[in-house]
Each structure stands twice: as C-alpha cells, then as structure tokens.
C-alpha cells in the first residue's frame, strides 16, 4: 500500500510540477522562402475569425489567407530607439515593448524596417491558429498581477508559457498592439468609419482585477493616442527580407 501511494503521489508531483507548454503547430516552410531572424512564418489557409458572442467581431467567420511573416516579439524600446534616437528609456528596460507611440510612429518604424503593420486578420490568425482557440496558449489562466492597479509591462521574451500556437509572444498580454485596420463594426456610424484604429491583444483592468483578453477581442482608439499600454509589432509578405 505504501509503495502504491508513493508511486501515485510521485506521479502527481511530477504532473503538477510540469510547466505549462503550448502545443506548437508544426509548420513546413516552403522551399525558397527565407524567414528573417525574429519573424515567424504563418502558413496560408483557413482560420476562424471573431466569435459569435462578440457582435463587433467577425462572429466566427472562416477566413482564408495567404501565408505571411510576423514578428515573433513586440517591437522593443531598444529597437525603436534606433529608428527614433529621441525615444528615451531606462537601459534595463531595453527588451520591454515600446509604448507611447502613435499609429503613425508605429507605421513609420515598420516601413523603415522594410515591413508594415499586420492587418487585423493577420494578427488574429497569428494569435489563435486554425483551431479557433480563445486564448493564444489555449488554457485559461488568471492574470498573476491581480491585486495591483496599473500597467506592468514585461520583457517581450519573458513568457514562453504564453505564446501562440505558432510561437508568437505577447499576443494576450503586455501591450495592446496597433494593427493597420480602421475600427468598423455593424454599429459604427459612417462619419466614424475612419476615426479609430484597432488595437489588439492587451489586458483589461477594473480596479485591481487584471484580465487577459481573448484572441478575438477588439479594442479601438484614435490613431493619435499614445499611452503606456499601446505598442506594436510588424509583419510582411513572405518575400520580405
């Protein structure tokens, strides 16, 4: 009996100590395509966009897309300061996501780097893969910073347990990210069709409760906004260098 219990508890211990890992989709990169360092190849094909419970999304529509490349990490403060030497940051936070940048500044960085901002559809496919998952890492987690009111960014590569099925980091936490689309929904008045840009993949906070947002959650903000909770990443077609 003692031996049996020892085995049971040992297995339980090993199981509970095992770090959460996100099942990664094995992607075969076609011959002739070179993926630049720091980018991820997202294959062509269908994916589910939006959710039927969220009327301002695509409501679960199946979208077919060409393959594309997207940054594995959010653009860092260190990277952005090469583009804009006036951007100052604490040296110990060079790997933190850049923030306080407008849509135009984000777009300018990507263009300077031979890239562009991802479309909203590209962003969502990179975050959830083809299986329609709610969280990039599939399993629901409570946010660990509950009990504090305020935005606490982290280094862009600090959470390998919170990656998307394609291995893209920071798509459900850290900064919200500019994408190229204007925010339009069924309720958007025509006059506002070019008033707000979409931002994706950040946190919501209500007093001291911090929550992750689902992969299909849309937020909107004026393109001139620059706040500590907004950053970005870049994307490009498969032939970019």
């Amino acid at each position, binding site marked *: 009996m003692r031996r049996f219990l020892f085995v049971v508890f040992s297995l339980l211990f090993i199981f509970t100590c095992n770090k959460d890992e996100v099942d990664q989709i094995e992607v075969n990169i076609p011959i002739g395509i070179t993926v630049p360092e720091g980018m991820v190849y997202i294959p062509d094909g269908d994916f589910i966009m939006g959710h039927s419970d969220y009327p301002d999304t695509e409501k679960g529509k199946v979208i077919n897309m060409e393959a594309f490349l997207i940054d594995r990490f959010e653009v860092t403060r260190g990277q952005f300061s090469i583009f804009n030497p006036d951007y100052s940051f604490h040296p110990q936070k060079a790997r933190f996501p850049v923030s306080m940048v407008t849509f135009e500044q984000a777009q300018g960085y990507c263009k300077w780097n031979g890239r562009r901002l991802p479309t909203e559809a590209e962003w969502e496919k990179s975050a959830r893969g083809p299986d329609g998952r709610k969280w990039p890492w599939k399993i629901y987690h409570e946010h660990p910073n509950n009990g504090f009111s305020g935005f606490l960014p982290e280094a862009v590569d600090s959470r390998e347990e919170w990656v998307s099925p394609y291995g893209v980091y920071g798509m459900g936490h850290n900064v919200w990210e500019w994408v190229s689309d204007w925010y339009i929904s069924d309720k958007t008045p025509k006059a506002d069709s070019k008033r707000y840009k979409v931002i994706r993949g950040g946190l919501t906070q209500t007093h001291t409760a911090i929550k992750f947002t689902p992969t299909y959650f849309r937020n909107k903000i004026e393109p001139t906004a620059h*706040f500590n909770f907004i950053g970005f990443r870049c994307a490009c077609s498969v032939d970019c260098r």
Partner: protein
Amino acid sequence: MKILGQKLNRRFFLSLFSLSALSTFFSKKAFGVSDYRRDKNIPKQYVQNRDRPDFFIRSANPFMGVDVNGWNLSVRGMVKNPITFEYEDLFGLKKTSQISRLKCVECWSATAQWEGFRFQEVIDRVQPDINAKYVYFQSADSYYESYTLKELVRPRVLMVLRMNDKPLSKDHGFPLRLIAPFKYGYKNIKYITSIEFADSRKRNYWSNHGPYSVDGTIQPGTDHPLDFKKKPLSINGGEVFHPFDKRPL
C-alpha cells in the same frame, strides 16, 4: 486525528489552545491598520469621503478645507523665474473650459464642466530648465502627486478654478485642482499649494499607500458611470468617453 498536519495530542492541543487564547489579547489594529477615512467620527464639516449620487467625493486626508486668505500657489524648482501666485492672480491667466469625465480607479466616473487654465500658462511664466522633465504637486491636505512635463501639456489637461459654472467647492478642491482626463481620479490632485519642476520623478500618494501605479493612466476595462446608474460599460483606455458623451472635435 490530525489538525494542520500535526497529530492531535495533549501537547499540541495545549499549544493551539494557548495560541488562540493569546490572540484575544491583540486588538484588530495589531493585524491591519483600520481605514481612518471611513471613520464615522470625522466631524461633518471636514472634507471626507462621501458617496453623493451625482459625483462621489474622495479625500485621502480629511481636513477643514482651504482658507483662501492664507493660501497661495508656489511654483519653484528647476525654473528660471520662481513665482508665487495669489488666488486672484490665477484669474489673469488665459481661461478655457471643457466637459470631461473624472474616472475613479475604484470604478465609478462622473462628468462636469471644468474651467481654468492650461499648464502651458505656468510654463510660459516660470520657464523651466531644459532638464526639468518632471513636475511634483503638493496640496493643502498633505496629498502629493507627480507627472511628467509632457503629460501636463497634453491638450485636455486643465488647472481648474471653476466647476459647473461655480468656483470649485470645498469638496472638489477649492481653490485649485488638476484635471487630467486620461488619468485615474487619484492623479487629479485637489487643493494644490505648490508645483515643483525637477529632473527626477518622485512617487505619489497612492503608490505609497495602496496598490496603485505612479503613472495612473486609465487602462482598458470597465467603468460604472454615476450618470448611467453605475451600469457597467467597457472603456478603451485613456480619457473615457461613453456613447452618450460628447467628444471634443
């Protein structure tokens, strides 16, 4: 029988018993500081937390309010021309007004028409040093707040003298308060007595006394506006505009 992983024997029973008995010797205050701001014995004439239906009042340090005869605004630190303003002097600055929502970190929000002057009016007069990138405010109720200079020159930040076409009331920060609509309410310091320009950032009151950030930028989340019966509405982050609010052009 086991309790807390220990076999219940006479020795353990006695230690538990003695511990529980000892605990009765300590008052609640030994385990946590009670919130004096909720103390019902604060004299009624003091500014204090009050849940008024149209606009809640929040006061970190209950006090009697400001006697304007003894009040002035000192602007100092890393500036070329330190200045002390009397209350009347502030009405000589270029005035502007706006309707904006004050969003409390505790969830509620309320709107008002605020009238006052832009922070640029202060900057123009004191001429800060090029390295003075931070501004530190102190108030008559021992409150303090810090900002970056860049934040204070944003278009909707206002140094407020009047609210809803009347001088600021004692509850809302007479004689001078700050309204920064993209920051949580606790950043909107009332009863301002001094403004200091500096080259390094100081902490603010609530980051020293509660689980709140120094920055205090309103994050995407949920609001419970008092003018919408406190029903939950999602907010995008930054200044709060609900569908029934008029946005500035």
